[in-house]
């Protein structure tokens, strides 16, 4: 039996394998789970979780530089997306501080998400102009400072609200397909970025900054680009997230969110897109599962009382346990790569099948032996 696939198709399949498998996996899991009654809302939140973790991966995973500040860009997306989604009739009343031209501007969901992404990308790029020069703990603390600054602005900026920064009245209308499109877009963007010349140069600087610099990689420039894209993707997640809660609250976009998405990325394995998706999915399952148990007081037929706080303890224990078992994350920086029969060209195999593939690697050894025999 031989599988005849043209070389071009094979190349496309191999290149698209990782994002393809991830997209199909995420979509299947989401659609199957949303068949369960009353679970659709949780699936939407889970998909957004995955989106946010992949978004932070674009910068942190590819550059190796920690950021606590991504919650600030999620907030940019959430506030823009949330405010523009409030019907204009109520907006003047709910957000009285807005300038007039923003009071009646209602472009619809996807244009709003695009606007949020573009604004976040611009802000991210400007912020990264200085921040991209930093690495290690200096970068971590600088992004933490950025998050604290953004929080002060959200709470006190009177364009947004008269104190407290809370805005209500956002329609809760994001469905599973919409969240799925958002997650898919960010996963594809992350994959295209890491395969792009910029992404490859950035990953080189992550693995060995000195070596990358010595061959001409401008580390700050590549980090700036990744940061801007990562901020845009975070804003996409934020603009969708706000539709699941219906209320804008500054403290939702602060330390706990900033830390938890970073933690999920590290748990999944920060070196690969697959790791980011796995980490996001694990977080989503834990978070939603725990909330279910806490709210309903049991799973299915089993009823038990769970005191407040225990859900957090269980999530934290799982995080720590996974890190002990796998300090480099669940995926250890690996991707799901195309199977051997697909990635090795048929022409150099005797029968065009994968079973013989290892013989290619063994060949030189045999030659060596035969030479020594002579």
């Amino acid at each position: 039996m031989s599988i005849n696939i043209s070389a071009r198709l094979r190349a496309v399949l191999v290149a698209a394998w990782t994002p393809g498998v991830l997209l199909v996996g995420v979509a299947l899991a989401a659609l199957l789970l949303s068949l369960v009654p009353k679970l659709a809302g949780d699936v939407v939140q889970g998909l957004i979780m995955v989106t946010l973790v992949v978004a932070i991966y674009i910068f942190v995973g590819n550059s190796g530089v920690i950021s606590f500040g991504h919650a600030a860009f999620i907030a940019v997306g959430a506030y823009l997306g949330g405010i523009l989604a409030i019907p204009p009739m109520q907006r003047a009343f709910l957000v009285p501080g807005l300038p007039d031209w923003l009071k009646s501007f209602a472009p619809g969901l996807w244009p709003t998400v695009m606007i949020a992404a573009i604004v976040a990308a611009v802000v991210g790029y400007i912020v990264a102009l200085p921040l991209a020069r930093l690495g290690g703990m200096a970068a971590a603390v600088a992004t933490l400072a950025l998050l604290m600054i953004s929080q002060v602005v959200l709470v006190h900026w009177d364009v947004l609200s008269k104190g407290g920064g809370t805005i209500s009245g956002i329609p809760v209308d994001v469905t599973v397909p919409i969240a799925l499109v958002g997650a898919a877009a960010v996963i594809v963007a992350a994959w295209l970025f890491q395969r792009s010349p910029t992404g490859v140069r950035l990953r080189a600087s992550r693995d060995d900054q000195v070596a990358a610099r010595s061959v001409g990689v401008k580390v700050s420039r590549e980090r700036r680009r990744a940061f801007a894209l990562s901020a845009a993707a975070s804003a996409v997640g934020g603009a969708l997230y706000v539709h699941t809660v219906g209320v804008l609250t500054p403290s939702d976009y602060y330390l706990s969110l900033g830390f938890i998405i970073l933690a999920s990325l590290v748990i999944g394995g920060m070196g690969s897109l697959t790791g980011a998706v796995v980490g996001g999915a694990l977080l989503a399952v834990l978070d939603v599962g725990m909330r279910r148990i806490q709210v309903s007081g049991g799973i299915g037929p089993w009823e038990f009382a769970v005191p407040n706080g225990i859900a957090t303890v269980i999530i934290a224990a799982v995080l720590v346990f996974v890190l002990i078992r796998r300090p480099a994350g669940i995926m250890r920086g690996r991707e799901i790569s195309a199977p051997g029969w697909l990635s090795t060209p048929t022409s150099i195999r005797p029968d065009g099948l994968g079973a013989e593939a290892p013989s290619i690697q063994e060949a030189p050894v045999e030659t060596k032996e035969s030479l020594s025999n002579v």
Partner: protein
Amino acid sequence: MGVQYIIDALTVGGLYALLAVGLAMTFGVARLINLAQGELIMVSAYTIYLFAPELWYLAIPAAVCVSVLFALLMSWMPFSFLRGADETTLLVASFGVSLALQGVAVAIFGSRPKGTGFGSDVSSSVEILGLSVSLLALITFGVVLLMLLLLTFFLRNTAAGVWIRASAEDYVMAQMLGVRAQRVVTMSFVISGVIAALTGILLTARSGSVMPEMGVQPLLLGLVAVVLGGLRSLPGAAAGGFLLGGLTVALTVLLPPGIAVYRDAILFTIVILVLLVRPGGIFVRSSALERV
């Protein structure tokens, strides 16, 4: 008036300095930024809550003991299982420990703040040289100064202190020269536990109440302070704490009322600017940093 602000700067700065030194201790020896030190503050504060106000003289030593006990537990689980993991993994693991301890506190005590009545005896003011000074501010500054002096003495003049400093300088080399790695790590956790307990006691006396996430904000300010001053230098960390405290008070005094609500935004903008100029910390010689 001016003197009052200086006293404020010294007390706030002193608390940040303590936190910064605590973080620098475990970072120097184990490359661990221990976010769960914030929860050591919290457990010592809850110990105070259980004893105070009647048994305050028991509460203080008990708080130190409980905090050190938790620090030792942490150094075993999970950190002894994570030896050799990279800094990011350790940081995230410490975040996990921090979350878990907060969860336990919520489960036991509930998430609302609890009043303790601790520290009401020292909230009065005393007259010194014609100035009215809060007794608590004096105590805080005294404790900070004493702790920093003791720590300096310990690190300079005892064998254990020299081991710790040697390990912070070059961990592998110190091990090769016969420094017991495990013992040094344990000591650094104990010291950070003592420091966290003192901070927790002082913070509880200031606010009079305790709650599960009370350690988070102080710890993050300590983190900012330690990176500002220099993670690899204990004196630098302490100086970073005083600098951050001084800046906070200076901004409170100098900012006009209209933009006073943006104080923290301005403070952290300054922090970012300083980091851009001195990424390795203000008080670290540039020759000590890795160069590309």
